[in-house]
C-alpha cells in the first residue's frame, strides 16, 4: 500500500522524464482548474471574496515554499522567517515609491528584484554569524531577529519605515500594475455561474501569485535533484557525516537560508502591492509561527503538502467567517459570533490531533516520509525496497561520494 505510494510519488517528482499521456492530461486538468477557479468564484453571487482569500493563501504558499527550503530541505528551524518577508515588502514599497514616477505601471514587476535581493541579503547577513548554531539555538536566534526587525520597523528606524503608521505615507498611493485597469475595463463576460465575470484586481493578483508559485515550484523541484539539494539532504540527515563527505556545511546552509529568504522577499513585495499598504503589525512572530505550521502540517519538504497546509491554515478560518459575512449562509448573529469565536479553538485542537495521528504532515514528501518513523519496521523495509528501486530504475545523475 504505502510502499507503492511513496515509490510512485518519488518517481512522479522526477523532472525530465517523458510525460505520458496521463500526465499531460493531469497537467491540463490543473491548468483548467487554475483558470476556472477565479472565473467561477468571481462570477458566482457572494463568493467574490474567495478570490482574495486565494490571493492571500497564494502569498502564504510562496512564503511556505521558501521556508520549506530552509526547514524541509536543509533542516534548519527558522522562527523569524517573517523578517525576510518584511524586508521584501518594505524594500519594495520604499524603492517603488521613489521610482514609480519613472517606472509607472511596471513598478511592481521591477520591484520584485530589489524585494528579492533585500530578502536574500538579509538572509546572508543573519545567516553568516548564526548558522553554526545547533538546531534550537538557531530557532531562538532567528526568533529574536524577527522581533528585532519588527520593533525597528515599528519605531521608524532611520526614519524609513514610518513606524506603526505604515507605508505608503499620508496621502501617497502605490502605483498599481498598469494591466489591472485595462483588464478590469475590457475583460468581462457573462458566465453560466449566475453572474458576470469582471477581471478585477483580485483576479489579476490571483494569476500573478499562481505564476510566482509555479516558478518557485519548478525552481525548487530542480534544486531538489541538483547537487545542492542532495547536499542539503545529506546535511539534514547527519551533519558530521555530510561534512566528512566533503560538503561545506556553512556554505550549504547559507545557500538554503538565502534562497528561502529570497522567496520570502518576493512574497513580501507581492503582499505589499496586493494590499497597497504595509505596517509592522503584519510581520509579527505569530506570522512566523503560521508559516512553520503550514510547512510542518502540510508535510515537510512536500510541495503539494505546503499548498494544502496554506489552504488549511490561512484559507479555512477566513472562509468560514467569510461565508457568513458575505451572506452565502444565512446565520443568526449568535451562530456567526460562535463560528468566529470557536474557529481558533478547533484549529488549535486540530493541530494537536494532526500531529498525534500523522506527524509527517498531510502530504508527506516521499523522502521525508521514510525518515520520520524510523522505528516503524514496515517503513524500514520499504526504505530498502525504495533504495533498490532508485538504484535500479533511475539512471539519472546520482552523486556518489
Amino acid at each position, binding site marked *: 500500500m504505502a510502499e507503492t505510494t511513496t515509490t510512485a510519488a518519488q518517481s512522479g517528482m522526477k523532472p525530465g522524464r517523458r510525460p505520458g499521456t496521463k500526465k499531460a492530461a493531469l497537467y491540463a486538468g490543473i491548468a483548467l482548474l487554475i483558470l476556472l477557479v477565479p472565473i467561477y468564484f468571481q462570477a458566482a453571487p457572494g463568493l467574490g471574496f474567495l478570490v482574495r482569500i486565494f490571493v492571500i493563501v497564494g502569498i502564504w504558499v510562496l512564503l511556505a515554499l521558501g521556508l520549506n527550503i530552509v526547514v524541509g530541505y536543509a533542516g534548519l528551524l527558522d522562527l523569524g522567517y517573517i523578517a525576510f518577508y518584511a524586508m521584501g515588502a518594505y524594500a519594495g514599497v520604499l524603492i517603488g515609491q521613489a521610482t514609480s514616477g519613472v517606472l509607472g505601471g511596471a513598478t511592481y514587476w521591477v520591484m520584485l528584484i530589489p524585494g528579492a535581493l533585500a530578502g536574500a541579503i538579509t538572509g546572508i547577513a543573519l545567516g553568516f554569524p548564526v548558522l553554526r548554531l545547533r538546531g534550537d539555538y538557531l530557532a531562538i536566534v532567528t526568533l529574536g531577529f524577527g522581533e528585532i526587525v519588527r520593533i525597528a520597523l515599528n519605531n521608524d528606524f532611520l526614519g524609513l519605515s514610518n513606524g506603526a503608521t505604515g507605508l505608503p505615507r499620508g496621502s501617497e498611493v502605490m502605483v498599481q500594475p498598469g494591466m489591472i485597469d485595462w483588464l478590469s475595463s475590457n475583460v468581462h463576460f457573462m458566465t453560466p455561474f449566475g453572474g458576470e465575470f469582471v477581471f478585477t484586481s483580485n483576479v489579476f493578483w490571483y494569476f500573478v501569485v499562481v505564476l510566482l508559485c509555479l516558478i518557485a515550484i519548478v525552481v525548487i523541484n530542480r534544486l531538489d535533484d541538483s547537487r545542492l539539494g542532495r547536499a542539503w539532504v545529506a546535511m539534514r540527515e547527519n551533519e558530521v557525516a555530510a561534512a566528512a563527505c566533503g560538503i561545506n556545511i556553512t556554505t550549504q546552509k547559507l545557500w538554503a537560508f538565502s534562497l528561502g529568504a529570497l522567496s520570502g522577499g518576493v512574497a513580501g513585495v507581492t503582499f505589499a502591492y496586493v494590499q*497597497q499598504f504595509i505596517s509592522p503589525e503584519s510581520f509579527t512572530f505569530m506570522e512566523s509561527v503560521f508559516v512553520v505550521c503550514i510547512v510542518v502540517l502540510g508535510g515537510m519538504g512536500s510541495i503539494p503538502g505546503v499548498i494544502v497546509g496554506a489552504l488549511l491554515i490561512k484559507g479555512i478560518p477566513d472562509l468560514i*467567517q467569510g461565508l457568513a459575512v458575505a*451572506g452565502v449562509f444565512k446565520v443568526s448573529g449568535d451562530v456567526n459570533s460562535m463560528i468566529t469565536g470557536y474557529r481558533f479553538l478547533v484549529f488549535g485542537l486540530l493541530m494537536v490531533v494532526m500531529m498525534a495521528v500523522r506527524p509527517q504532515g498531510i502530504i508527506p514528501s516521499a523522502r521525508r516520509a521514510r525518515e520520520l518513523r524510523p522505528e516503524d519496521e514496515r517503513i524500514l523495509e520499504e526504505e530498502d525496497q525504495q533504495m533498490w528501486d532508485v538504484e535500479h530504475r533511475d539512471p539519472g545523475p546520482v552523486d556518489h561520494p
Partner: protein
Amino acid sequence: MTRNRRRFFALVAVVAMLSMVVTGCSAKTEQSTGGEGGKQPVTVVIGVGAPLTDGAVALGKGMSRGTKLAVSQANESQELKDLGLTIEVVEGDDKGDPTTGGNVATQFTSNQKLLGVMGHLNSGVTRVAVKIYNQGNVVQVSPANTAVDLTKMGMKNYFRVCTTDDVQGPTAADYAYKVFGAKRAYVVDDSTVYGVGLAAEWAKQFAADGGTVAGTEKTGDKDTDFKALVSKIKAANVDIVYYGGMYNTVALLSKQLKETGVKAPVMSGDGCYDPEYIKLAGATNAEGDFCSSIGYPVDKLPKAQEFKAAYAEEFPGEAIAAYDAYSYDAAQAIINAIVKVAKEMGTDKLASVDGKKAIIAAVAASNFEGVTGNVSFDEKGDTTNKVVSIYVVKDGAWVPAE
C-alpha cells in the same frame, strides 16, 4: 498519476463541488427573498467591521452593540415597516489586523445585500479596507478612526463621526496647561497609529503653550510591565503624564505610577473614555486622571439620555464603551441614507450600483442630531462636529471636567 496526487486532487474537487453547492443554495435564497417590485419585503445588511476576538475586543464588541441598537430601533420604526424594509447586522471580525481587515472588507463587498459598513476601529485596518469598499461602491462610516491622513486618501465613500488627532490632542494639551496648570509633562505613546498621532499632537501643542516636555517614551500596545518607565517618569518629576494609547495599557501605567507614589495624573485620549479604564487601574489610582473625548458630555444632550436608557434596556448589564455612541450615530447615518434612497429609488434598487452610489451621496449629505452631537460631514468625509470634551475620574467614574 500517483496516489498522493490523486488524493490531493480529489480534495480540491470536493472543495470545488462543495462551494458550487453552497452557491446553489445562496442563489435559491436570493430568489425567494429578493423578487420583483418594491412591495415585496426586502432585507438589506449593514456590516460591522471591528475587532471581536483579538485586539481591543471590549471596544469592538461595544461598536457592534451600538450598531445593533440603532438597527433594531430602525426596524421597529413605522418608516421601515411602510417600506417593507428590514435591516440586518452582520459582524466581520477584523482582529485589529490590516490583512484580516482586507479579507473582511472583501467579504462585505461580496455580500449582495450589504449596503454599508459601520467600522473599523483601527486606522491601519481602514487604510486597507477603504479601498476595497471604494471599488465595491460601499459606504464606510467609522466611529473611531482618528488618524489625520485617512481622509486625505481621496476616498469618496469614507466618512467618520469622530474628530481627528489634530483636534483632540491640542484641545487636551490646552486643558492640561491652561486649566489644570501643568508645566512639566512626560509624553508616552503605545507605538500604534492612534497613540503615536495623538501623543505627537499633544506634545506639540503643550510645548507651544509654553509647557516643558520633560521626556518622551514608547511602549508596546500590549505591554503590562511599565515599572522601568515608572521609575523614569518618577525621576523626571513632572506635573502630568500624557499617554497616547488604549485603556488597557494606559490604565496599567496609571496604576503602577500611583502605586510608586507618583502624584501626577495621567491624561489620554478617547480610547480611555471607558469604565474598563477605572476597573483596571483601580478607582483610587485612577482618581484625578483625565481623558479627552469627542462631542459634548452625554448629560448635556437630550438624545444621549434616550440612548443611555435604550442601551440599558437592550443590553442589560453591559456598560457603554468608548465608541458605542459613535457607532450608534455612524449606523444611524447609514440607516438614514438607506431610507432616503429607498424612498427615492424604491427598495429593489437599493443594492444596485446606482443605489449604492446614491447611498454614499446621501451619507455625505447627512445632517441630523445624533447622540454625540450634530452629525454632518465636510467634503473630505471628516465630521463637522469638532467638539472635544475633557473628562476626569471622580469617585470611580468619568465625569466632565470643568
